[in-house]
C-alpha cells in the first residue's frame, strides 16, 4: 500500500562525479565548523553544539523515514532513552562520559530493533500510530516513581559538563562542540556509505516497492528492523550528547513535541537527503526560539504551517531547493 509517487522521494542515485561546487562548499563548511569556537563566545558555541546534535538525530530519523519510508512519530522517545542512558551511567554508575555514548547508542539500537520487529507487520500508517503512542507515553515512564532511584523522577538528573582531556586549552563548551562535531562527522560518513551502498539501495527499494524488493531476494523484514535499529542508534547517540551538553535530563524534555520537532526537521531539511539534516537542525534549533519571543503558541503554529506548506510547496525541503538553485545557477551564468 505504501507506494511513493515519483517526485515526493528523491531517490539517491549512484554518482560518479561530485560537482565541484559541492566539494568546495563541503570544504568551506568543514573549515568554518572547526574554526567556530575561535570566533564565537561560549553561548553561541553551545547553541551550535545543539544544532550539530540535532543533525545527528535527524540523520537517524531520515534513514528510517526519508529513505526507508517507515514513519516514526516517536523518535523523541529514542532521543530520551539515549539521554537517560548517558545521564544514569554517568550519575549513578560513575562511567566516564565518553564511554556512555556508545552505550546510549547500543541501548537505543536494541530498543529500536525490538520495536521494529513487530512493526514489520504494520503498514506505514500503523507504524506511525504505534510510534506516536511511544512518543506520548515515554515521558510518563521516565516520571514513574518505581524507577525514581535511577531516573530521578520528575526532578530529572543534573550532570557536570565534561572538561577537555589532556589539558587542552578549551572551555567545556568548546570541547563538547568539537566532540559533537566529531560524532556528527563520523555519523555522516557512515550514513553516506550506508545510503550509497547495497544496504541503502535495499532500504530504498523496500520503500518504493516492497513486493518487488522481496521478489529480488531482499529480506524486507530484516532490513526494516535493522533500519529501525540503526536509526534509533543515531538518535540515541544524539540524545546522549544532548544530555552532556544541556547538563540535565528531565522527563518533560522528551515530550511528544520533541518527536514532532524531529519530524519537522527532516521535512524542512529534505526527506531522503543527508545534507537536509543540517538545514533541518538549524531550523528546529533557531526558528522556535525566534517565534517563541512572539507568543508561547507561536513555535507550534510555525511548525504546523511549515509541515502543511512544505508538503504542497517544497516537497524536497531546503536541500532540494539548494540543489535546484545550485544546478540552475551555472547554466544561468553561462547564458
Amino acid at each position: 500500500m505504501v507506494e511513493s509517487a515519483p517526485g515526493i522521494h528523491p531517490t539517491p542515485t549512484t554518482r560518479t562525479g561530485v560537482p565541484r561546487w559541492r566539494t568546495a562548499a563541503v570544504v568551506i563548511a568543514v573549515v568554518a565548523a572547526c574554526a567556530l569556537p575561535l570566533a564565537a563566545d561560549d553561548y553561541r558555541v553551545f547553541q551550535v553544539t545543539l544544532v550539530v546534535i540535532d543533525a545527528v538525530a535527524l540523520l537517524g530519523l531520515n534513514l528510517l523515514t526519508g529513505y526507508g519510508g517507515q514513519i516514526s512519530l516517536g523518535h523523541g522517545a529514542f532521543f530520551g532513552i539515549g539521554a537517560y542512558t548517558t545521564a544514569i551511567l554517568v550519575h549513578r554508575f560513575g562511567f566516564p562520559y565518553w564511554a556512555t555514548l556508545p552505550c546510549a547508542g547500543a541501548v537505543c539500537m536494541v530498543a529500536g530493533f525490538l520495536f521494529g520487529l513487530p512493526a514489520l507487520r504494520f503498514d506505514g500508517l500503523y507504524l506511525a500510530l504505534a510510534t506516536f503512542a511511544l512518543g506520548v507515553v515515554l515521558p510518563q515512564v521516565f516520571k514513574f516513581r518505581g524507577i525514581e532511584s535511577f531516573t530521578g523522577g520528575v526532578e530529572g538528573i543534573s550532570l557536570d559538563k565534561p572538561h577537555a582531556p589532556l589539558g587542552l586549552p578549551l572551555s567545556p563548551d568548546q570541547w563538547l562542540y568539537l566532540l559533537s562535531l566529531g560524532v556528527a562527522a563520523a555519523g555522516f560518513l557512515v550514513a553516506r556509505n550506508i545510503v550509497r551502498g547495497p544496504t541503502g539501495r535495499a532500504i530504498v527499494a523496500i520503500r518504493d516497492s516492497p513486493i518487488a524488493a522481496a521478489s529480488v531476494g531482499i529480506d524486507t523484514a530484516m532490513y526494516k528492523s535493522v533500519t529501525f535499529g540503526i536509526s534509533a542508534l543515531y538518535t540515541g547517540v544524539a540524545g546522549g550528547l544532548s544530555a552532556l551538553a544541556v547538563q540535565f535530563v528531565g522527563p518533560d524534555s522528551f515530550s511528544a513535541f520533541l518527536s514532532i520537532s524531529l519530524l519537522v526537521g527532516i521535512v524542512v531539511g529534505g526527506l531522503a537527503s543527508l545534507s537536509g539534516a543540517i538545514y533541518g537542525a538549524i531550523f528546529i534549533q533557531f526558528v522556535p526560539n525566534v517565534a517563541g519571543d512572539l507568543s508561547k503558541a507561536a513555535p507550534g503554529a510555525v511548525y504546523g504551517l511549515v509541515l502543511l506548506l512544505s508538503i504542497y510547496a517544497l516537497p524536497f525541503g531546503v536541500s532540494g531547493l539548494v540543489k535546484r538553485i545550485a544546478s540552475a545557477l551555472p547554466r544561468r551564468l553561462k547564458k
Partner: protein
Amino acid sequence: MEEFLHQVVSGLANGGVYASVALALVMIYRATHLVNFAQGEMALCSTYLASALIEAGVPYWLAFSATVGISFAAGMLIERVIIRPAARAPVLSVVIVFIGLMVALNSLASWVFGTTIRTFPSPFPARPPFGNHYIGSHELGVVGVTLGMMLLLYTFFRHTSLGLAMRAVAQNQASSRLVGIRVGRMLALGWGLAAAVGAVAGMMVAPVVFLDPSMMGGVLLYAFAAALLGGIDSPGGAVVGGFVVGVLENVVGAYLIGTELKLTVALALIVGVLVLRPAGLFGSVAATRV
C-alpha cells in the same frame, strides 16, 4: 467492591468519550483509509468555541448545537482545503499533513484562548440520579450521549439514501462515481460528521478533565487504542473498544500500575493489538492486492 464498581463506572464514562473520538476516527478511516491524527485537536477547537459561546451568555444547549454545526462545516472545509490536495500523495506525506494540522490547530487554540485551565459546564445535574452513589449524572449522561450518537449514526448510515451513498464511497470510490454519487461531496460529509462527533466528545470530556490545550492528547491516544481494539474499520467495534479501553484504563490504573502510568495501557494495547490481531475484535482482515 464498592470502590471497584466505582472505578468501572467512571471508566465507562471516560470510555464514552474515547468511543466517540474512536468513532470519528473510524468514520474517516472508512472513507479514506487514513487515520486522522488531528481528530483530537479538532475536538479541542470545537470545545473552546463552545466555551467561548457559553461565556458570552448563550444557553448551554444552544451553544452545544451551534458548536456541533460549526464543527461540521469546519470539518468539511478542512477536508476540501487541506486533505484533498494531498489525497493521492504517499502515506508519509499525508501523515505529515495530519501532524501539521494537529500542531497548527493546537497552537491556534492556545493562541486565541490562552493556556490557562478553564472549567467547562456539564449539562447534567450535579446531584447523582435516583439517589444512588455509584454513578454521577454526568457520567451517566456521557454514556447516554455516546450511545445516542451511535444510534443516530447507525440509523443515518443504514436507513437514509445519503448514508447509503457514503457507505458506497467508503467501499469503492470508482464504482460510486460511475453510478452518479458525488464522491468528493461524500468525503467532505464524512469529515464533517467526524468533526461533529469529535466536538460532542470534547464537550463531554471537558467538564471532567477541565479545558486546556493539552486536554485531548491523552484522549486521542486512548481513542487510537479503542479504534484499533475494535477494528479500525468497524464503527460498532470502536464504541465497544472505547468502553473497554475506558474501563481497562481505570481498573489497571487503580489496581495494577498506578495512575501515573495510565497512558502506557494505551501503548500496550496499540502494540498488542497490532501484533496479535491487527484486524481488531470486529474489523475485517485487510487483503492487499499485489
